[in-house]
């Protein structure tokens, strides 16, 4: 899931002040932002109270089922048309993808209410950890299922770096070095590090990514974007 954090309240206030907004419609997200406790029904109520305490009127609110989903958001916005129309601005408590979906669907200044932090593993309720940065050129096959791109603070593919001390990381000193973990697990599995892992192919991750399975299924050539084949490398082709 996408892990979000509350955005600095002063930045939100400054955004609203810029357009001299007096009234706000609030949109949350029923998926990630609800799980992260940043943009569900409860957090919308907190934001509402906060805005009202600052003298804004809140014209209404909604929690999209999945706020990064255009179809669903369009439907929600139609349902709340009057409330949205009555507002000077829309505040979205979701990841940046959701903010953009809402901005597409309403003709109002739309502002992010959260910061999109990372793609997170839900370790247990309320505990999220970044384990993958969606680099597009996965090395987990070579690293025993532990991602060095993400879990080594320097993102080194080959390690450990010179700062590893007693198996611990030099940057985040309370954590085990990712490369110590990798080599241990490889050894446990009777495998070893074979040679040097080559520099990553960052070209596959060059944005904006785009996947169009519909046109492909219909045998149509998809409309061109910056990456026609975002998840295919030349090696694979």
């Amino acid at each position, binding site marked *: 899931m996408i892990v979000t954090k509350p955005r600095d309240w002063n930045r939100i206030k400054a955004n609203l002040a810029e357009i001299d907004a007096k009234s706000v419609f609030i949109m949350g997200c029923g998926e990630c932002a609800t799980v992260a406790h940043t943009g569900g029904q409860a957090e919308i109520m907190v934001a509402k109270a906060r805005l009202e305490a600052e003298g804004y009127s809140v014209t209404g609110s909604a929690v999209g089922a999945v706020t990064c989903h255009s179809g669903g958001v369009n439907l929600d916005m139609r349902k709340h048309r009057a409330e949205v129309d009555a507002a000077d601005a829309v505040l979205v408590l979701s990841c940046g993808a959701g903010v953009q979906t809402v901005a597409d669907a309403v003709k109002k200044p739309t502002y992010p209410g959260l910061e999109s932090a990372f793609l997170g593993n839900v370790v247990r309720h309320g505990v999220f950890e970044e384990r993958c940065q969606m680099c597009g050129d996965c090395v987990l096959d070579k690293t025993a299922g532990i991602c060095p791109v993400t879990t080594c603070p320097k993102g080194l593919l080959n390690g450990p770096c010179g700062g590893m001390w007693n198996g611990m990381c*030099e940057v985040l000193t309370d954590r085990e070095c990712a490369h110590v973990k990798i080599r241990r697990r490889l050894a446990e599995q009777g495998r070893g590090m074979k040679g040097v892992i080559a520099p990553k192919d960052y070209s596959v991750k060059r944005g904006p990514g785009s996947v169009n399975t519909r046109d492909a299924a219909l045998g149509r050539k998809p409309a061109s974007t910056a990456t026609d084949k975002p998840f295919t490398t030349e090696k694979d082709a």
Partner: protein
Amino acid sequence: MGKFRDALVRGEFVITGEVAPPHGTDYSAMLESVRKLSPFCHALNVTDNQGATLHLSSLAASRVVLENGNGCEPIFQQTCRDRNRLALQSDLLAAWTLGLENVLVVTGDDPRGGDHPKAKGVFDMDSTQLLQVTKGMNEGVDMNGTPLDGATDFFMGGALFPEAEPWDIQLERGLQKVEAGAEFFQTQAVTDVDKFARAVEAFEPTGAKLIAGILLFKSPRVIKFINERLAGLMVPDWITDRVTGAEKPLDEAIAIAIEQAIQLKDIAHGIHIMPLGSDDAVARIIEGAELG
């Protein structure tokens, strides 16, 4: 072929030192260090934004050392932290063109520990990968295998931490660097000569040369700084006790360095002295250990 490389390959015991480029354009203090250290050293490392803090580039500063070292050569340092693969290769070509023949390839400290904590750490490549690329350039190709108009012929080194545990992982990593092209290693400060000897023995079959790091533990304040701030280094109690208990801590630190140099003389292929600004101590260490 450079003098530093010749000496090391011939089996001579080499001495290397370290100078820091300025935080600005006035490199007179660095030149003063070069003047003091060069008579005693085969080569001087020229650090590259050390500790992730801003300094004049190692490229320009290495050239200054080359011109002012009276035959004592610079070891151009390249860290992976600040540059992507284009910039790294470009700087290596520049270095060779400027007459720099020795390069030490390191990954680099994380920017969050330096003076620009908001910087994006690049780490497009790690040190092993960059060694491999440098080796390719010595063979006349860039990292894509495309021929260069003029190859390099660098003497390539890497960093090694012989006291880090688990040792088998460190060793594996070091061997990986040799496979990638490292011909010599400069190590972090050696505080346990036995562990260093273990490393020398392990690398013996590869032919890679090990230059032992000697750090001047010059005051209780410096020891505290090393323990708290320097990645991957803990000063053992026996050193801390001797330096803190001494009437003249610097003299005691120099005495310790001399003892270490004497012990390492028969084990290492050379020593790398890090005087932490007390450049005058280098001459005393070398004379004391009868290495001059």
